[in-house]
């Protein structure tokens, strides 16, 4: 029995060692990023530090960054604006579609459901060239609408919300609302939306983070400087004009990451429980 406990102790020590290593591995790149964003190029070149520089240096780096056409505030606002509308459209219309599929028995319902499952499997790059050419034809390149409108048909969100509706919504409630004289859309807005709010919140977070992080589609579609999103600006830090401004480069990267870190530190429990909500049932 003694050797059994000793073995368990040994295993536990080993497991903790590995956990601490992986913990550090997850933190260190972010930590270096935040520290170096507050240091000068000379300090960064002199060696690794685990302690931050000065506020004055942050102001200097900020200045070095923005004076070279890196309009952080504009990019920040653009990303926020896009993520807001993409999330709102995606979640609202998906809830509508999921409700329509769940409650009404209309011709073509099964076909539509099958179609949604099929779209889930198709990689996005398959339609990209056609999408780009189509947007060019109807003069929607360089327009946020080309990014926002497609979110109205978010197959994954519909799938997730329909599963949620199936588990929670009772038809008696809908019938009661109808008997009380509420129209179909009024029932949806005043009865159904409040009931599915937890699922909408979970889905909104993932949509929001997804749109915030989306680099490629806006990078290809948007060409006007003032419409650039934050990831598009970050991409510019590769360029030669920043070559000597290491502190500025780190600061620019940090600006796109810090909002997510702050958000995540408050919502991690909710987000982690949301990951497995959609994908796997059982």
């Amino acid at each position, binding site marked *: 029995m003694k050797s059994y406990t000793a073995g368990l102790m040994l295993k536990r020590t080993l497991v903790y060692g590995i956990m601490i290593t992986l913990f550090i591995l997850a933190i260190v790149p972010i930590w270096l990023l935040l520290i*170096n964003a507050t240091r000068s190029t000379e300090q960064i070149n002199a060696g690794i530090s685990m302690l931050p520089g000065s506020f004055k240096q942050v102001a200097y780096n900020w200045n070095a960054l923005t004076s070279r056409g890196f309009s952080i505030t504009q990019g920040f606002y653009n990303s926020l604006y896009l993520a807001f509308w993409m999330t709102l459209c995606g979640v609202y219309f998906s809830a509508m579609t999921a409700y329509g599929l769940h409650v009404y028995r209309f011709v073509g319902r099964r076909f539509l459901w099958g179609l949604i499952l099929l779209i889930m499997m198709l990689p996005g790059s*398959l*339609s990209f060239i*056609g999408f780009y050419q189509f947007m060019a034809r109807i003069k929607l390149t360089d327009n946020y609408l080309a990014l926002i409108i497609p979110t109205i*048909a978010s197959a994954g969100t519909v799938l997730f919300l329909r599963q949620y509706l199936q588990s929670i919504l009772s038809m008696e409630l809908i019938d009661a609302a109808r008997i009380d004289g509420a129209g179909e859309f009024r029932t949806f807005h005043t009865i159904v939306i409040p009931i599915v709010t937890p699922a909408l919140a979970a889905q909104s977070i993932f949509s929001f983070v997804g749109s915030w992080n989306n680099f490629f589609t806006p990078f290809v579609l948007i060409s006007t400087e003032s419409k650039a999103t934050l*990831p598009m600006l970050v*991409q510019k830090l590769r360029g030669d004009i920043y070559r000597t401004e290491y502190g500025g480069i780190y600061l620019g990267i940090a600006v796109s990451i810090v909002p997510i870190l702050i958000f995540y530190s408050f919502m991690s429990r909710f987000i982690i429980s949301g990951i497995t909500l959609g994908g*796997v049932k059982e």
Partner: protein
Amino acid sequence: MKSKAVGTERRVNRWGYAFVLPFVVVYFAFSFYPTVYTFLLAFTDLRGLRSDFTFVGLENFAKLIQDPYFWGAVQNTFIMWGLNFAPQLGIALILSIWLSDLRLNLKAKGLFRAVIYMPNLLTAASVALLFRSLFGYPLGPVNQFLNGLGLYREVVRDGQVVQEAFNFFRNVSASRGIVAFIQWWMWYGHTVIMLMAGITSISASLYESAVVDGANSRQTTWYITLPMLRPMMLYILVTSMIGGMQMLDIPFLLTDMRGAPDFKIRTTSVYLYNMAFQGRNDYAYAAAISIGVFLITIVLALIIFFFLQDRSELKNPRKLHVKTK
């Protein structure tokens, strides 16, 4: 509920069309039509700033099959996906078993899980730029760290051995390794969470009866946890493969947007971008590339399902057959 709708019910059911209308309209305009259009364009010669095109039949596909850069990109994508996926699943499997182990009774599990998942939420473009700086030459933090440990690259220059910092992005294996590492770093926490959800859903009575029969923890892991996780692992494998075939932001931004060094970290998606939006703007060929990648993905998914599906249903009749013989 299942009976045929009549009268008022049928009229009410028509409202369903109003609810699904926005989805259907947007899907057909912005997703279905572009997909069909991509297929169409793959058979044309659309390139450059022109907007007119003529049909050229299978020309683009014939070119694609013989294009060493395309197959090189396919190879790069596979290598970097494999280098990331094998350790990702392996480490995540071990971690999820440990974290779910009641006998080990680990502390701070929630915090650990939250922290290792965190990189998954970060902007991939920013992560690429961050690692580009961290592995920078000659004074990036990784080089500073290695030099501090006394690790240098030794080069012979003018007949003398010189110690130099590592120029990671000039070296094929190092660059591919860095891409794979970033992908692993961003995704293994996600896999841990998925696998832990899978372990939680395994019925406790299975373990209880195994323990009553005298099974130790290694046996319960080997004969209960792993077989029961099989569907979840299959799901993770297929979604990771489909995602891996689309790998773009990290290899695109880590070096020169063309997969340097020597196009060896150029994935199929980066190649598609290079063809369509740089140089000749060969949209038709890029469309052919996306269809090629799609076909490869489908074939792989089918192979995975064929070899890894649960075939106990198929095996049993065979056993019976052998017995009767």
